[in-house]
């Protein structure tokens, strides 16, 4: 096949994915939308009833909502990181995953951003988190990591959205050429007059490189800030220096798993087997294995140093994690995040897409549990035994959590039909 024919076929195949949806697509969209509606309903119920309908109360003031926030923000951070870091390292297989990963990032940040609002209870006062001049001379507490979060996450959302959009421009121009009717007009506006001249490509390459180089340390710093929501306190299990790199590695780990969860069925349903190959999945499976090892290293170091320190509070806390009331969740977390990914040392399993898909689901579960275990166990067993107490999420919290997954998958499904799911220009570049 000549290069011209291949390019034509590539454009056709990728843009064909944006045409009339199948019944399976509609069914998936309906399920996701229903879950999202459930979440919205539960949130409405919480607004009506008040935050008391949730299970969070003293001493566990952070429960499923903060777990969901950290989980989604982790997924969000890894998307740009996977895309930007692989770009900087000139990893060619990135073009199979970067578009999905970047879309996943933008959607996950939007999902994550809802949880602080949900957790506020009176979410209509969210603007109190912003520093704005007011008659009462009230000012946000800049020494609070929660305020750092507001700035970090909003900056991150801006950069991710720009990075996602800039990467799309050449492909939007291809879509503009290929589509007719209203879509042609939409893509004409979005492609910003892209003609693909040498001058445009030169500026584009500079901008994309700059954004990738800028996004990489930004992502690391933003997720470090998320980890400091916990590490800045003095509570056993939270106050530890390893949290920042551990959270960053955990974010890449969970995000890589989520990319696999999304791309394996997407490849099958949209018929993109020719472009997203098993070799590419093997490469991303290696990233999953590598990040799993970093996360496992952190688990071991935290545990061993608690014992080494001889600090009774640290020892009691880590014993509580392992044999206390949340032990089943803890061991399940270790199984999903530490043990199961070790099977990826076997090449045959790294290349088995069904296995990878199932494994990625386990990792998603494991990483959600990790955040739950970190948050809840530390609050449930503070220094003072008088202040101990357990937490279990209530129906409303579970409904909102399900709703967040519904929202995420619904928006991702909409993305697959609205925008090119593969970076066409980049695939062309590598092919030639």
């Amino acid at each position: 096949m000549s290069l011209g024919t291949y390019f034509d076929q590539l454009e056709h195949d990728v843009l064909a994915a944006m045409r009339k949806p199948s019944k399976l697509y509609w069914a998936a969209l309906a399920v996701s939308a229903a879950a999202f509606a459930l979440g919205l309903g539960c949130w409405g119920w919480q607004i009506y009833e008040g935050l008391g309908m949730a299970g969070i109360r003293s001493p566990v003031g952070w429960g499923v909502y903060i777990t969901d926030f950290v989980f989604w923000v982790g997924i969000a951070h890894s998307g740009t990181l996977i895309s930007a870091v692989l770009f900087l390292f000139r990893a060619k297989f990135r073009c199979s995953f970067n578009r999905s990963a970047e879309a996943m990032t933008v959607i996950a940040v939007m999902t994550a951003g809802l949880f602080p609002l949900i957790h506020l209870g009176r979410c209509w006062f969210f603007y109190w988190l912003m520093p704005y001049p007011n008659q009462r001379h009230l000012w946000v507490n800049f020494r609070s990591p929660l305020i750092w979060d507001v700035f970090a996450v909003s900056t991150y959302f801006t950069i991710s959205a720009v990075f996602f959009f800039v990467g799309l421009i050449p492909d939007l121009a291809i879509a503009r050429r290929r589509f007719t009717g209203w879509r042609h007009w939409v893509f004409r506006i979005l492609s910003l007059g892209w003609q693909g001249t040498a001058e445009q490509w030169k500026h584009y390459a500079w901008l994309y490189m700059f954004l990738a180089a800028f996004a990489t340390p930004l992502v690391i710093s933003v997720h470090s800030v998320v980890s400091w929501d916990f590490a800045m306190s003095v509570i056993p299990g939270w106050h530890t220096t390893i949290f920042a790199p551990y959270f960053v590695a955990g974010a890449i780990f969970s995000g890589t798993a989520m990319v696999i969860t999304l791309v394996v069925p997407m490849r099958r349903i949209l018929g993109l087997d020719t472009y997203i190959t098993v070799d590419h999945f093997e490469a991303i499976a290696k990233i999953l294995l590598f990040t799993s090892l970093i996360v496992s290293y952190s688990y071991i170091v935290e545990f061993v140093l608690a014992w080494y320190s001889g600090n009774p509070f640290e020892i009691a806390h880590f014993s509580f994690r392992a044999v206390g009331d949340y032990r089943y969740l803890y061991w399940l977390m270790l199984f999903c995040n530490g043990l199961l990914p070790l099977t990826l040392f076997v090449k045959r399993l790294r290349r088995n897409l069904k296995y990878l898909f199932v494994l990625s689901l386990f990792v998603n579960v494991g990483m959600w549990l990790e955040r739950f275990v970190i948050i809840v166990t530390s609050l449930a067993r503070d220094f003072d035994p008088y202040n101990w107490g357990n937490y279990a999420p209530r129906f409303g919290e579970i409904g909102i959590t399900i709703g967040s997954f519904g929202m995420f998958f619904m928006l991702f499904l909409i993305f697959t039909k609205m925008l090119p799911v593969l970076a066409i220009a980049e695939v062309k570049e590598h092919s030639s």
Partner: protein
Amino acid sequence: MSKRVTTLAAAAVILALVVEWAFRGASGMALVVAVLFWAAICQGMVALAAAADLSGARWFLPLRGHLMGIYPLLFAFPALFLVFSANLSVYPWLGHPTRWLEPNFFVIRNVALLLLTAVAAHLWAGADRRGARSAKVYCTLYLFSFVVTQSLMAFDWVMSLEAPWINTLFGAYFFIEALYLGIAATALVALLRARRDPARYRPVLVDATKLIFGFALLWAGQIFAQYLTIWYGNIPEEVGYVYKRVAVQPYGAMAVFVLLAMFVLPFGILVARAAKTRPGPIIAAAGLVMAGYVVEKLVFILPAAPVHPVALALEFVILGVPVAGYLFARPDVPPS
């Protein structure tokens, strides 16, 4: 080449033994500082080669064979630690040992891990020469042992000087620094070779300097993550460690130098694109990183244990001669 390196390593161990004997315990932690530095460079370079191998990085290929060939020197480090073990009295915990900080166990586990790292590198190099499929397995084993060994160097050799003070990031911080040093040394080797064969080694040089730039940022992130958590938590038993090394002179000034040498200056020097291929900036950046590493280890160690400056200088040179001799010698093996 391998025989020559082995001979040099053996000579270094014997000379270090002579120095330690001559100082009769007054050398303090001098040998530890020297071993930390040269082990970080040697293990870091082999780890860089291993990571490049596993990730299929082609840019590293021109230097791969040469950097891997340094592995016989790794066998010197367990022997050097055994030499140091006669000096364990510098550790305050010796008077009240715990299950982990117990002298015999302390020496055995550290020697065993240093040996495992050397053996893993040896097996990897052997399998690689034969083109055996097991090379990947040994390469992975080497990386595992490198991470565990460097972590234990951090927790056992340095952190335990102030036991029960703990810092969970210390282990990861040490092995990332070892990689940082390995990259800095790689850049210097690439620079030297690029003069003879620019077409082959210039791309390696550019990528190695880019990695120095990236690791400067990573290092800064790691140090900030430790400092901020401890400073913000403000727990007396935790802050005391940092206070002694930041607010008390001359350690405060040394700590500022470390920050400049490991992050600010390499970042500033290499931020310009043209600097990534010019000898002056590259030598300055790599040299600063190496100097910063040594001073940082002194900042960690000196407030808790003595380091004899003459013994340190002698042992530094004794261990440095075989490493530098190997790295900067004219290549007599075809690059793989």
